[in-house]
């Protein structure tokens, strides 16, 4: 997994609440293997008009947002289906960080597992950021995961929270399966004890 330490990129505002993972990537693309670039599938149906042409008004279709790595989104971003392909689509389109007032829980976890940083901030701060991105000379946001801060183009800084375990896996680009297998003995002991206490759960009979 790609490590995430710092990021300095333009940012795009997506001011719509409850962007579900069906909108991030429609179901018909979910059979695509990970080895295929998922970037083309990102927001596939909502960034196009009825004739299938890219809608020039959609935020990620504008020339100034080409190559942007940061999305500043609204409440409940990534709600709905657990499809990890939603994160693949964001990641392959170059997005490395989504800042929003809240996230779907499964989407949040999936992001961490793929080197994409979800940052939760109060909605009033998000509203300020949208305003700053609209009015500042540039839309560059610096994200510093080690120090848990973001720096806005108008000089303002905001701290953010992330739990230490997830922070560590992101910074080190760590695959947690390797970490977990170091506890193999404890896992086996737990299973042995469980089989003695609750034998009906020990295997599928």
């Amino acid at each position, binding site marked *: 997994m790609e490590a995430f330490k710092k990021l300095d990129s333009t940012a795009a505002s997506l*001011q719509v609440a409850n962007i579900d993972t069906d909108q991030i990537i429609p179901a018909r693309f979910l059979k695509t293997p990970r080895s295929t670039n998922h970037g083309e599938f990102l927001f596939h*149906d909502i960034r196009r008009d009825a004739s299938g042409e890219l809608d020039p008004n959609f935020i990620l279709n504008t020339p100034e947002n080409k190559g942007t790595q940061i999305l500043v989104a609204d409440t409940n971003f990534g709600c709905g289906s657990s499809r990890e392909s939603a994160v693949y689509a964001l990641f392959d389109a170059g997005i490395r960080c989504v800042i929003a007032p809240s996230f779907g829980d*499964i989407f949040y*976890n999936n992001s961490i597992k793929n080197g994409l940083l979800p940052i939760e901030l109060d909605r009033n701060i998000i509203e300020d950021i949208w305003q700053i991105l609209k009015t500042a000379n540039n839309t560059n946001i610096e994200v510093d995961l080690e120090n848990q801060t973001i720096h806005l183009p108008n000089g303002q800084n905001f701290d953010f929270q992330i739990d230490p375990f997830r922070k560590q896996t992101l910074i080190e680009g760590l695959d947690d399966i390797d970490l977990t297998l170091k*506890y193999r003995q404890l896992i086996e002991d737990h299973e042995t004890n469980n089989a003695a206490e609750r*034998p009906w759960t020990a295997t*599928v*009979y």
Partner: protein
Amino acid sequence: MPQTLFEKIWSRHVIVEREDGTCLLSIDRHLCHEGSFHAFDKLERENRVIRRPDLTIGIADHYVSTKAPELGNEEHELRVPIEKLTANTKKAGIQLYGIGTPEQGIVHVTGPEQGLTLPGIILVCGDSHTATHGALGCLAFGIGASEVAHVLATQTLWQEKPKTMRINIDGELATGVVAKDIILHLISVIGANGATGYMIEYAGSTVKNLSVEGRMTMCNMSIEAGGRAGMIAPDEKTFKYLKDRKHSPKNGNWDLAVTDWKTLFSDADAVFDKEVNIKASDIAPSLTWGNSPEEALPVTGKIPDPKNESDMSRREALEFTLQYMGLNPGTSLKDIEVDRVFIGSCTNSRIEDLRAAAEIARGRITQVPAIVVPGSAMIKKQAEDEGLAQIFIDAGFDWRATGCSMCVGMNGDLTPPGERCASTSNRNFKGRQGPGSRTHLMSPAMAAAAAIMGRITDIRELEPVDL
């Protein structure tokens, strides 16, 4: 120290607790469907071994054709994920309930039905509606592909302990009000992210009085309120439901298990991070009108007017939703005509759901195309034996084979662009049932009534028929 039901189950499964509170949990049961190919591919790339294949069960549901299931799907590209599931489970030595087996069905219907879901366990699946299983008193939640791979490789998961929320629903339900109406009402009250970060326990006399099937409908849509898991303390109804199921504990283990299961409830003075109280008498037959499950109203309601919304961004969002849904402010929900009807999905495809829909369909004729998709092969057979299938067929419904069907928009069953579907599924998202589809979520009886009348209908006002 008094504990919640959730804490009792959680603490049994902690293998390692880090200083920051993140826990390594043992996983008792893992269900996987066709979408798991991402996880199997990852393990293959990393040359990893599947640690406990005996604790995973494969079930084909998402890509299965409900018209020609024996082929998997008539379109070859839709058969590929089913073939991958067959190959991956075979190679790993994982039991598969594939197409044509008597156990096959929607993963969240089959799990409880086969006794794979048991009180007190932790059950996971790469699907957000895994909370369904919590209706039997277990901790069940949806995970992404990387976590599926982690479970396959280790039979564990790292999890941050969620906050707990108890939702108390008390009182008698009015005539025509069912579990689907309760959950739609609840989501409209607490919002689509009202339970984000929380583990929900549903409690109260109304929940106690629901059937196990009804409880599953409620827990199923926990994710639509943002809750990753929903659960209900097991009781005699739960035990009766599980007795003699294929994988339920047998012989001496059954008595041991029931003794243990009877300890699974929230202690009287257990403390929840949040409590919500709902009065059953406030709930009417309900449906959604927008593109978020929180946009639900009683069937007697009217489409809201953006002009009444003072927050500009919310007003714009509402205008956009009404444009997408092709609806005008102030329209009575009962005046909305539908183009087709879908009765099925892991929310509402169990025998009780089919009985409720058949009760409406009996002796009447559909006005619009309508399909009924049973939740499992077993339910299909039971419905045929009970005569329900014939009622549907006589009324003009299309009686299909089991699968996720028109809920997920990935197996050929789609609502065409611009068409309006009365659906018993769980998501009314833009494009969920197919690009440009317009979905109204409701109960099986309400959906059947919409098929008969060709429009949204209050089942309490349906004229009786001479049989």
